């Protein structure tokens, strides 16, 4: 699974790193540190990725499954 955070939509609510700290971290300005990037989601952290996606008020997080 890959998690992508759209830089155009992300405005720094911070819900993702607050609710999925195992997967995402905060930067100095309160934005998620991987804003605008894609990261690999380890299998055991897929539930955290789903929480992060659901928590974003902007709908900035997308998840894609790889085969």
């Amino acid at each position: 699974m890959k998690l992508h955070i759209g830089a155009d939509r992300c405005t720094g609510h911070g819900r993702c790193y607050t609710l999925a700290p195992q997967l995402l971290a905060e930067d100095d300005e309160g934005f998620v540190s991987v804003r605008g990037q894609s990261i690999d989601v380890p299998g055991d952290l897929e539930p955290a990725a789903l929480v992060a996606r659901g928590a974003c008020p902007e709908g900035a997080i997308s998840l894609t499954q790889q085969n």
Partner: protein
Amino acid sequence: MDSVLERGKASGCPAMSLHFAQPQPAGFYHRKASELNAGAPIWINDNAQGYWVVTTHELVREIFQTPEIFGSESIVPSAPDQNFVLIPTNLDPPDNGPYRKFLDPWFTPRAVRAFEPQIRAIARRLVEELAPTGGDDVVQRFCLRLPTEAFMTMVGLPIKDIDSFVDWVEAFFRGYGGEEALARGDGQQPEMEAALASLDTYMRGIFADRLANPRDPETDFFTALVNFEIDGRRITEEQRQGVSLLLIIAGLDTTRAHLGWLLYHLAQNPEDRKRVQAEPELLPTAIEESLRLHAMIMGSGRKVRQDLHWHGVDLRKGDMVYALNTAANRDPAVYEDPDVFKVDRKITGHLGFAAGPHRCSGMHFARAELRIGIEEFHRLIPDYRIADGAELTERGVELSLHRLPLVWSS
């Protein structure tokens, strides 16, 4: 076919006729939000000049995320020509950008964490004074005072002026959505005008002081503000007033409302209250649920910037649109049992703090105040209920309880 009402009717939008500023029994406006959601995504409101009302989560979020169509020149749907300026709230991108870059660092999670001990000290003192009384109106004694003191402390305004601030903010909000005019019946709002003038004069004094006697701009907000430059030039006196007015009304009124809604819910739901006391890690989740269910911004006004066919309706430049944060937060398409307070609800994405370029700058501060406020309240007053015979009413537009008389054993 010119007016919003005519175009809306032609598109099959249901019509309503509601003055959102009318005070009502507590809970009226949240129930209204749910009703409107059940009716249609887009309504027409036959009030003032006539405006669109949008209810679903999908469309409300789209409005917030599309400032090029839905501009912020006015955010009061019944007042397309707003009589006050909030900066950066009333500025569209890119103009709001430099102001957000200036403001946001003061309210980051990091900055808020550093300030938490001070919030806790204020909350603890307020509750220590309140607890022995056995009961009082917590809106006056706690909900109004904690955010006001915390905010004034954070931005370096003298606490001795707190009562004036509370009065000015109250008067501002009685006029904000038109409640004062409604009560007077003559369309005038002299108390709101007077409050704006008083705030203006007060802030002028602060700016003059910080220019003559600068403090450390890293820690003194108004020193930083008077020296803030855009494109190499200090912002004008008027622009400073715009920023100050926004901070004052956003900082003071909003958190006050949410503290009230939280205590209102917990006073009436002892199972939820006991759970958040027994499981402190649940309190942030309960707070998010309250921010969702009791969103206190009824809606956010936007002014259409260009003619557009949008989700089945014809929008014209200049139309006012009321995007309902409250209705979006109760959208059954997004939330299961949307009208039920679930203290441990898992999905927490909500529009209580809006979205897009104007999403609430103070959200981390607000969350900390709410959490610490409830923690300190429960520390000395764990069991409380609403006083018998209490008449609970709410203000419209920025939804807050006028009073919340609670009783407890002291």
